[in-house]
């Protein structure tokens, strides 16, 4: 560990920094190894950190829970992105949390009871003069990522009750009520699909289509999630015991998603490219009518994908505006154009009741596809405009 720290410090060009840091380390060693890292004393109403400034490199938190509740400890970027974490630290127990960190500002948070935002403490990882400053981060970008993280979490949180309306109807054996609640239950997922899909184990459980199964997988056993229920409702037109089990499973898998979504790795470029990926989803699954082949609710997904992309874009816009105002003007125009086009397929602009996609003719599908291309192509340039 010491070797690692030294190598980081060596990268700093000045002897002064070297002396300062090694001096600090020696002092720590003299204290009986405690400053081998940073001590965090977690209580029910406080989160004490032994020092708020430490060298970049290998960070070790020695956590002690002196409270009465189970707690968890996080190291966070300023945008609330998680660097590392440790859950389930019981009262009276100790735990260590480690991370490799670059120079910059961070927060250390304790979450007594494992609920809420936690008790936060600002800390700084220092590097010697001239050392790598870590990932390029501006306050604007951090704000954009933090706001998007909140959006993603809110979408997930708001989705659960809508899913429950759907799954309750399935459990009640009410085909019509289930059909009615189906598309609405997917909106939050579709708005944040690139993030949702980043949890590789959840996506195949909840959003796979029958043709997405692998050879050797049994559709009767291995096909789960929304589209399996979609087929039961629209094609088979009946709800059996298996469907009721699947409804329970969908609730469970999505609850897992809601719990984990806040920990997704989100950066300004992943936001920008995620926006483009949402349009890719539209281009490959929705415009073709493949996604919702039984319910034909593709335009609901389509709209949700566009909304999610637009949210990312709007949050990144202040940065993009500075770097590439022409691109921003083009994106504003194309988002507006695609939304106008989509509005042709719903009578009430406040609702998500869209024309059934099997009623959308070939020329109209091409028009939608052209609209997607018109937006997705400039959107693919957003990442470059953000990091420029």
């Amino acid at each position, binding site marked *: 560990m010491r070797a690692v720290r030294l190598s980081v410090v060596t990268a700093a060009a000045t002897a002064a920094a070297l002396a300062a840091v090694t001096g600090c380390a020696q002092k720590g060693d003299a204290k009986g190894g405690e400053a081998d890292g940073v001590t965090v004393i977690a209580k029910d109403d406080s989160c004490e950190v032994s020092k708020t400034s430490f060298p970049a490199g290998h960070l070790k938190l020695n956590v002690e829970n002196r409270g009465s509740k189970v707690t968890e400890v996080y190291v966070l970027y300023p945008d609330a992105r998680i660097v590392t974490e440790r859950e389930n630290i019981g009262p009276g127990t100790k735990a260590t949390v480690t991370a490799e960190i670059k120079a910059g500002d961070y927060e250390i948070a304790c979450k007594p009871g494992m609920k809420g935002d936690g008790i936060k403490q600002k800390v700084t990882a220092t590097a010697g003069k001239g050392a790598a400053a870590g990932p390029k981060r501006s306050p604007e970008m951090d704000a954009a990522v933090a706001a998007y993280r909140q959006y993603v979490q809110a979408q997930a949180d708001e989705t659960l009750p809508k899913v429950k309306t759907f799954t309750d109807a399935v459990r009640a054996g009410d085909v019509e009520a289930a059909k009615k609640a189906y598309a609405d239950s997917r909106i939050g997922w579709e708005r944040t699909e690139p993030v949702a899909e980043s949890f590789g184990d959840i996506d195949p459980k909840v959003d796979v289509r029958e043709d997405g199964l692998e050879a050797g997988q049994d559709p009767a056993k291995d096909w789960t999630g929304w589209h399996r229920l979609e087929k039961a409702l629209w094609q088979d037109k009946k709800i059996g015991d298996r469907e009721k089990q699947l409804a329970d499973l969908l609730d469970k898998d999505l609850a897992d998603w809601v719990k984990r979504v806040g920990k997704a790795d989100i950066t300004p470029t992943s936001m920008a490219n995620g926006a483009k990926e949402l349009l890719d989803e539209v281009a490959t699954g929705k415009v073709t009518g493949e996604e919702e082949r039984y319910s034909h609710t593709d335009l609901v997904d389509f709209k949700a994908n566009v909304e999610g992309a637009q949210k990312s874009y709007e949050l990144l816009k202040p940065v993009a505006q500075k770097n590439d105002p022409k691109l921003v003007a*083009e994106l504003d125009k194309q988002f507006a154009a695609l939304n106008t086009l989509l509005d042709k397929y719903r009578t009430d602009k406040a609702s998500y009741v869209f024309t059934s996609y099997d009623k959308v003719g070939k020329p109209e599908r091409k028009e939608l596809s*052209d609209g997607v291309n018109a937006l997705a192509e400039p959107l693919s340039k957003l*990442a*470059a405009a953000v*990091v420029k």
Partner: protein
Amino acid sequence: MSEDTTTTATAEDTRVAGRPEGSAPSRRAVIGWGGAGLALGAAAAGGAVALARGREDDTAPVADTGSAVPFHGAHQAGIATAVQDRLHFASFDVKTTDRAELIQLLKDWTRAAERMTAGHEVGEGAYGGLPEAPPDDTGEALGLKPSRLTLTIGFGPSLFDGRFGLAGKRPAALVDLPKFPGDNLDAARSGGDLCVQACADDPQVAVHAIRNLARIGFGKVAVRWSQLGFGKTSSTTPDAQTPRNLFGFKDGTRNIAGTETDRLEKHVWVSGKDAQGPAAWLDGGSYLVARRIRMNIETWDRTPLAEQEDIFGRDKKEGAPVGKAKEHDEPFLKAMKPDSHVRLAHPDSNGGATILRRGYSFTDGTDGLGRLEAGLFFLAYQRDVRTGFIPVQTSLSRSDALNEYTQHVGSAIFAVPPGVRDKDDWWGRELFA
């Protein structure tokens, strides 16, 4: 012909001059240099031209050298240019209603076409840029020669509908084609505001060109339909063998050659009286008719040889007209059956109507009924469609014995503007002036 062969630089020469292998300029370097970098590239390319000039390019302009066809000239390349082996033809609808935006697109397309026909990548290239961003060029033509790529643009009648203030500039000869007997046109394979014809000896080079132009155009234009072609079915080089169509016959033997300046002036290039008034912008241009002609391959293949030869009016082996020995022997039309293809298509049967043919065979797999989805993608350039394609097709569609085996399923007409003169000029400048 318009192209000045002395300016033909080979692919390697221009590529080395413009962008040395292994020393691709970084994205930032290119941005930083701006216009200076471009100017330097142009000057260096000029030097390469001087070096490359000489032996080969003068004596064998159409050999399969993979060389670049000059983009600039009085006429657009890709019309009288020696016919390349492959085609990717695309028709576009203009989606924007903003005239300035359309003009900008035509400028952007012109600059991209200049680069691609010279064997260069579009924009800042296919690699070396920001890792988080898609590259400007799609990259599948990297390492391939220019392959005599030509890109030719045309403007359809619908472009003159008033959206862009061009209604008064529609030339009288840019007519809506009449309905010919037997036509079975699919609207999804017909028409278009703009077209780009990409011809090259390498199919990947032609496809790359259309793909990148479409990409640049997203939001401003959308591909309406496109067609791939292979096995040129006509030649603009008289000494070369006339290629055969998918029926196994030579056709278009008397096609206008790229070297026949007088016939090109007379039958292909718009000029003089017909380029006055609303059509003045078209001086040096031409008119293009594109027809997707489906061939009933299987029934043709079951037709007796004698009947096949009667239908065309030629023999199958040599391609000689009825009663003659050699393909290029002057046909004696009266010796042919009245409904034979050569007799009906011949200029002497159509008041002298002559067109420049640039057709390609196409095979788009099978048609779902187990039959070859194949035929001829017919491209005809002429000075005036009313005295070119229309009289010939009127006569053919009424009586041609070949009609039993063919059907026209796609159709489009375009006014083809004159050539791009230099680096400051752009496709359609005269039209939008």
